[in-house]
């Protein structure tokens, strides 16, 4: 019984992180129809910033989140200006997906190698005074860092949802997502909306990186595997369904964790990819899509 509760707890904690990883990726995908392969690298860079701020100045990783978000926000702006905005000349979504996939793959190549050159390919993680602390939940153990990660993921998801539904800027984002031409005819500065969305997506990648380096570990090569997770999450949630990213992440995390009760945990990645394929085959609009 304890093992089951333990498994579910692990599933929830990692699932929330999956949701967080999916959010930024899904935002760019939904709004601009760009596949940002570099999202995984952004996560890793965010993690490294927190790691070095902690190692050099002893700043608690969770307290460094605002600074990480700030730096990553500007990286997102640069990515948009240099790499993504030239692709806006392709009006159709399929063309944008193709081109952005190739171009951001190149960006990933560059970023991953720069990160390796700067900080070596060693696996790093942050160990603070409270890293080993655990709570007892119905006889199972829940790590403090994992709990903080969970809270942060939920806060970020809620904050993004509020931004999109309650603020003028957020409504601009949704209008540009639905029909960018009609949005600009209404007076929305679509380019600026895209630019800032990109910054926000990168900032969210940074937050995910901080949680990962605090709860787990990072290495320059891990970007692509986190990206793969993000892709599975957005397929589960349905493309452009920002509100369902976190639930989709939780579902994925729980399925992966529960599968370890039956088969070796070495099969976690294949399992998420099998889910990915099954959802695409039977529920191509996501698990939460009504009808069709």
């Amino acid at each position: 019984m304890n093992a089951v509760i333990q498994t579910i707890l692990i599933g929830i904690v990692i699932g929330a992180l999956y949701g967080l990883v999916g959010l930024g990726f899904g935002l760019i995908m939904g709004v601009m129809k760009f596949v940002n392969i570099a999202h995984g690298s952004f996560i890793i860079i965010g993690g490294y910033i927190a790691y070095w701020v902690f190692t050099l100045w002893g700043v608690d990783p969770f307290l460094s989140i605002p600074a990480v978000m700030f730096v990553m926000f500007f990286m997102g702006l640069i990515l948009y200006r240099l790499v993504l905005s030239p692709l806006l000349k392709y009006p159709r979504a399929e063309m944008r997906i193709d081109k952005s996939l190739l171009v951001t793959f190149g960006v990933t190549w560059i970023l991953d190698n720069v990160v390796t050159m700067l900080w070596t390919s060693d696996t790093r993680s942050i160990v603070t005074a409270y890293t080993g602390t655990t709570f007892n939940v119905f006889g199972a153990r829940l790590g403090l860092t994992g709990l903080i990660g969970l809270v942060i993921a939920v806060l970020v998801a809620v904050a993004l949802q509020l931004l999109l539904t309650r603020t003028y800027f957020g409504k601009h984002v949704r209008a540009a997502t639905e029909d960018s031409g009609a949005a600009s005819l209404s007076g929305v500065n679509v380019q600026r909306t895209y630019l800032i969305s990109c910054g926000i997506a990168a900032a969210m990648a940074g937050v995910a990186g901080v949680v990962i380096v605090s709860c787990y570990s990072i290495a320059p090569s891990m970007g692509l595997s986190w990206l793969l997770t993000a892709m599975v999450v957005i397929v589960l949630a349905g493309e452009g369904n920002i509100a369902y990213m976190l639930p989709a992440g939780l579902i994925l995390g729980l399925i992966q964790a529960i599968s370890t009760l039956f088969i070796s945990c070495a099969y976690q990645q294949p399992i998420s990819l099998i889910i990915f394929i099954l959802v695409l085959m039977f529920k191509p609009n996501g698990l939460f899509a009504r009808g069709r």
Partner: protein
Amino acid sequence: MLEISHIDVYYGDLQALWDVSLTIGDGEIVTLVGSNGAGKSTLMKTISGLLKIRAGYIDCDSIRLDRLPVHRIVEQGISMVPEGRRIFPQMSVLENLEMGASINPARKVRQHTLKRIYELFPILKDRAKQLAGTLSGGEQQMLAIGRALMSQPKILLIDEMSLGLSPLLVQEFCRVIKGINKLSKLTVFLVEQDVQLALSMAHRGYVIENGRIVGQGEAKELLCSEEIKEAYLGMEKADKT
């Protein structure tokens, strides 16, 4: 005053408008009539900035429009009701209207403008919280016009207003638009396939054929001219029988 002077417009390598010139004076209702594919919607898209011109210029109260991005043209007081309405179906009616007030001066007074639009189309107020995609065709057209008015334009461009609407609704829209034109001195530029309707609403009209302006005049005169009757209203020439 909106002045369009000798513009050429292309879709890729395909020329769609040849040397088109027209003017729209303050407070006028002007219409552009012509058959399918004559270039009516192309001209609309060009004025609103969705298409770029290769020659000539477009100028509103001596400000060059043709080099501005679309949202900056809205800031100059030119607002378009696009063909097919193009509302945001996954957003509420109220949010759709709020989007119309995206430019800065309009955003500050949006509560006031909103009240005016609810007076014009009371049904939008009842449906404010509903998703725009659930509205009927006529209600969506009201929303599209309301959204365009939210930016407090000087000039309202309307592309194919009557498309897919019942004759009764079309009458209603005509009445509303004539009303705003009279009361608020709003300039209206109307592109319409229904030539009779367009010319009966407008003060002046232009006729476009194969991307070229081939005629212009007072709406009443055009409505009586034999060429228009024969080409667009499906009437035989009276003197040839």
